[in-house]
């Protein structure tokens, strides 16, 4: 180790990998992973969220976790986004592609992707 920059580089590289252990962040993305959710394809959605959040540099501010059945099994996979001081947003019938879009527009851009929310679901 010859410089502080080298140390900082290791720290930056590792920080996202251990931040998960600091517990839930202010923003939480919760994927419904009960039998109904898994059957409807929640696992790839969860994977897509984890990947997009990390690649988008959001690992320190967004926690992705799972939950059980939300109760709207016909709308699974269901994803709920909790942000401090804001109303909970519920996305339904999610896919991996939709997940990436939500990360991009909602979590990064701050705009709820209304066409995927439960309110706009038939």
């Amino acid at each position, binding site marked *: 180790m010859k410089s502080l920059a080298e140390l900082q580089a*290791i720290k930056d*590289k590792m920080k996202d*990998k251990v931040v*998960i252990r600091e517990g*839930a962040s202010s923003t939480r993305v919760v994927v419904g992973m009960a039998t109904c959710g*898994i059957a409807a394809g929640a696992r790839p959605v969860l994977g897509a969220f984890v990947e997009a959040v990390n690649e988008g540099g959001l690992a320190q501010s967004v926690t992705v*976790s799972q*939950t059980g059945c939300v109760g709207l099994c016909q709308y699974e996979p269901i994803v709920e986004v909790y942000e401090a001081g804001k109303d909970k947003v519920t996305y339904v019938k999610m896919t991996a592609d939709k997940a990436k879009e939500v990360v991009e527009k909602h979590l990064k851009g701050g705009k709820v992707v209304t066409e995927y929310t439960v309110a706009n679901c038939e």
Partner: protein
Amino acid sequence: MIRAHVLICGGTGCTSSGSKKIQEAFEQNIAAAGLEEEVKLVQTGCFGLCALGPVVIVYPDGTFYSRVTTDDVKEIVEEHLLKGRPVERLVYSDTGAEEVVEAASVSLNDTAFYKSQNRVVLRNCGVIDPENIDEYIAMDGYAALGKVLTEMKPEDVIQTVLDSGLRGRGGGGFPTGLKWKFCAPNKAAQKYVVCNADEGDPGAFMDRSVLEGDPHCIIEAMAIAGYAVGATKGYVYVRAEYPIAVARLQKAIDQANEYGLLGKDIFGSGFDFDLQIRLGAGAFVCGEETALMTSIEGNRGEPRPRPPFPAVKGLYNSPTVENNVETFANIPQIILKGADWFKTMGTEKAPGTKVFALGGKIEHTGLVEISMGTTLRHIIEDIGGGIPNGKKFKAAQTGGPSGGCIPESLIDTEVDFDNLTAIGCMMGSGGLIVMDEDNCMVDMAKFFLEFTVDESCGKCTPCRVGTKRLLEMLDKITEGKATLEDLDKLEELCYYIKQNSLCGLGQTAPNPVLATLKFFRDEYVAHVVDKKCPAGVCKDLLTFVIDKDKCIGCGLCARNCPVGAIEKTDYIAPGHKLASYNIDTTKCIKCGVCIGNCKFKAISKV
């Protein structure tokens, strides 16, 4: 992409309750569920709740599983990791709250045990993988060393440590900055930094946990100390009885060398620091600083008179700074966050925190870190969960064989160096043994005296012979053969040993006797005058009797008595059908088996 971390405690406590097997089971089940890409297994150091081990924590939720068995692992993997449903029956739920609102959110930080702790020294224990230097770096590791080497002069470092008011956590409470300041100006070809990890007090395991859970912070702190006082060589003297700590520390040293955080020209500053481990063979006296250095030199571990102090003439007769593990563990944080930050914690004369190893008659055996000045009541009742089985608190023993005890009347004492010394006790290195009404204080003093008699190195007479005579007097008391005059002699000898012994071992060895004499003299008097042990511990003063009217004559006690001391009588108690039993006191060896077997509470010790 990793979305969840499973942290498994790999400290000595959880390893002995089977955490290695748990880890293997997790590996197999995670592989079977196809989750290798999503879930990361991390072996960490001690979480602190050793009594509830093996402990497993799942992040990001922070769900805290206690007493996990290999059979539970499949369920945790399939339910929690796969489906996101925490296995509630295994979740440790003592949150101290009236009701658990959402079981899934029970994280360790909400539990009564962790809530009021202040983890500075233990901040990384149970959080990072101690065998992975990168994880330590991610938690600001080595940033303090970088700051010191690139921005600070040695005298600034010493001043910062002085300003912080940090005092030696090994028990002495000597200001750390002052120790460094004394050593720095001494000129020598080679100076040394020594870390005292020869933790020998019975029941104490603070230093072991730090070495096991966060070994890099000791390495970093020792390098900082080296820079501050101008030493380029360091030794960690650790007991060979701590194999996990030794292995992790060695691994950490190797990694630090590989990264160039030890060795030559660290951070391009021109500062060199070399660190090595020396194993102690388990002699208690080697925890005394001069004996420790004699042992590192390869000689028999015996203390030498001070002055000269180690700062002037220490290891290999060179100026040496020696600090305890916990003291060093505070240093990187003090450098990074500043002396003022450190002083916001604890009391005016003793800033910072203290780690205690809770043991004895307490619900949560384990490791806790609290701000100095926390009351003993808070530590025992709130964090420690109180005394099991509804028993009454009698005393807390601190400082091991060098310490004293704190009776119930002083349970609201705020714990710091000076307060404990003022009541005739001492902080010690951090062992805290809780005793309830079933503990005999004379027996407790005897236990520690037996320890010091075994561990006295024999170099000076007051300690070698004095402690032996003290023990013989205590034996006499517990056998009911002593007189009141003996109590005075006992006390006199205690003071003689304290004043005349060469090193800390002898100077403090009589403390358990003096403290119990001070606070529990009535128990000594009961042994001497009434020939009774009020707590029912000292065998020679006990008689086992069967209440003939409570005995239903089942004969269970007689069948289990190892010496055949229990026989049937002719007496049949009113309302019973069988004749009662009686104990022949001339044959009875007072083993207590009969009491354990009697379902009718008819047998008692008087």
